[in-house]
């Protein structure tokens, strides 16, 4: 099983994400934003956290228009798997692969701490290792994680069971406590919290490792 991790100028969680994939048994290839093709035989694309292009204009906006993101979009449209974490989630909304947008945190503060997440569904390769209703603890580190979408979009996300994670104690003002959402085919996950920072005993928390472990197992069966 092979994963590609996209690297933009300003990405800073790319190696952590690669390590999360590797520990789960995936081969990882790093892919530069100027590349015009994904490596062949890729099973999943990871878009990491960080501050791509310095967060200029809007978080993720310039990255979303980089050459590799056209390929990521085509990959998703073909039914390929992808996960975007933090800035990667912002990129996925800016490319319109996922609906909605991430606004400045309601309290205007950059928040860096571990938060509780309720698992809201378990019918995707990313979440099937968790129980619905289970609370896990995953770190967040963002200034612009306040998820918003119009009411019709939010209703549709809920009706289709596409909210993957909700904050137990909403830290950033996100609509309906949303911390992560799935695409309509459930093959693309965007989330603000960082599961790759909860993958090793040395990180003090392994709640995120299960996401990568079950993802790898599911991709092997797919």
């Amino acid at each position, binding site marked *: 099983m092979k994963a590609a991790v996209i690297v933009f100028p300003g990405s800073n969680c790319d190696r952590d994400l690669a390590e999360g994939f590797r520990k789960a048994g995936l081969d990882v290839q790093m892919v530069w934003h100027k590349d015009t093709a994904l490596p062949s035989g890729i099973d999943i694309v990871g878009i990491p956290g960080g501050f791509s292009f310095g967060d200029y204009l809007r978080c993720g*906006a310039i990255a979303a228009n980089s050459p590799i993101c056209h390929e990521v979009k085509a990959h998703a449209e073909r039914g390929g798997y992808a996960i975007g974490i933090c800035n990667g989630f912002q990129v996925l909304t800016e490319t319109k692969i996922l609906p909605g947008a991430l606004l400045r*945190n309601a309290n205007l503060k950059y928040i860096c701490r571990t938060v509780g997440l309720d698992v809201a569904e378990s019918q995707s390769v990313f979440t099937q290792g968790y129980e619905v209703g289970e609370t896990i603890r995953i770190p967040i580190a963002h200034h612009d994680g306040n998820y*918003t979408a119009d009411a019709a979009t939010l209703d549709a996300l809920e009706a289709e069971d596409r909210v993957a994670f909700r904050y137990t104690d909403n830290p950033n003002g996100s609509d309906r406590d949303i911390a992560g959402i799935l695409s309509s085919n459930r093959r693309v996950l965007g989330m603000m919290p960082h599961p790759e920072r909860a993958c090793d005993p040395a990180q003090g928390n392994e709640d995120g490792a299960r996401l990568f472990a079950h993802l790898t197992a599911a991709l092997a069966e797919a």
Partner: protein
Amino acid sequence: MKARVHVMLKDGVLDPQGEAVKHALHGMGFDGVGGVRQGKVIELDLEDGTGEDAVREMCEKLLANTVIESYSIEMA
């Protein structure tokens, strides 16, 4: 020629920065301020002949996120 693009959060989208500015103004005694919305202005230096349609396309594709933002264009 130049174009000036104004990008604002749409009405109904909470603008926490505008709210913070409003609170600061109230704290300074400017009690007459009912609301503050903060946006951005982007100035473009354009080659002659670049039309408003092209600027609109730039707005749709990059300069504004129309999920949350509205924009207006001034050609000068």
